[in-house]
């Protein structure tokens, strides 16, 4: 998984297209370079929520993402496997409590994703002028 992410990041940081034909094909290339892991709505909601909170419990994340326990577990696990999210299990009194937080790699990936979206919009605006 980490190797896949590395490949995606390398593709993302490749030199920008220089020829007219390459520029015309830029949106398609950018789509291919999108961080697919982040692009999914539930995973994007998890990462976004964690970007503005130091840590969130499973229950809080479930309320924010408005998804089921099973779905949240699956998506959180994928983000954890990719190294974007860290998970801490503990107890709140006698109740088990799972807390999630964004790792540095996750924060960087989120920023890159935002930059990517903005670049696509800027590119489209530039073409329409």
């Amino acid at each position: 998984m980490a190797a896949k992410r590395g490949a995606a990041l390398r593709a993302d940081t490749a030199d920008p297209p220089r020829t007219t034909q390459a520029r015309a094909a830029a949106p398609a290339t950018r789509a291919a370079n999108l961080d697919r892991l982040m692009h999914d709505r539930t995973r994007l909601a998890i990462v976004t929520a964690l970007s503005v909170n130091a840590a969130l419990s499973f229950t809080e994340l479930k309320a924010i993402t408005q998804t089921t326990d099973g779905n949240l577990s699956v998506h959180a696990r994928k983000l954890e496997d990719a190294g974007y999210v860290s998970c801490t299990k503990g107890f709140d009194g006698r109740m088990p409590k799972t807390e999630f937080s964004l790792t540095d790699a996750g924060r960087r990936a989120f920023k890159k994703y935002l930059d990517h979206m903005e670049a696509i919009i800027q590119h489209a605006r530039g073409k329409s002028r």
Partner: protein
Amino acid sequence: MYDQPVTDRRAGVALNERAIESLEFIRTTMARSAPFTAVSGRAGVVMGALALIAAVAARSAQSDEQWLAIWFGCASIAVPVGLAMMRVKARRYELALWSAAGRRFAQGFLPAIVAGAVLTFALVRADALDLVPAAWLLLYGAGVLAGSSSSVPVLAWLGALFMALGGAAAFTPPDLRDIWLAAGFGVLQIGFGLYIARHHGG
């Protein structure tokens, strides 16, 4: 743009629309997941502006009754405006105004406000109008400070500063009462309102 094949142009437009959708999704998710506040920063700015107008008007009041009527008039406009703007903000971000955090905020904030109202009538009856600005500032600050534990942390600073102004108002000449009220309900509300609007979604 037109030197591209039609399919490429369509792909570009679709991708652009999806990117805009994604950013919009991120924006609303951020607003929903940021520490709870339906406290409207814009309402704070509007209420602060009303307080500044009231302070200027109150400076030229001919009697204590007129002075009190001006400030009560200001409150009777500012409170409904503030509540309405909180509802608008809560609806915009799909926040439950009466969520657990919202109820905790009200439980912290409202007792001090009720105490302030009761104390105002008591002070007016006792002919101690000079102490009314201090009571308003101190109790409003205490309410905000108590409510801040279940809202955004910056409200704690707002509450503490209101209380400091209230303390100053209690021990300075009565001539300065409108200055203290303008500094608290005007300047502080506008300043913190702008901060909340900028950092906590409006």
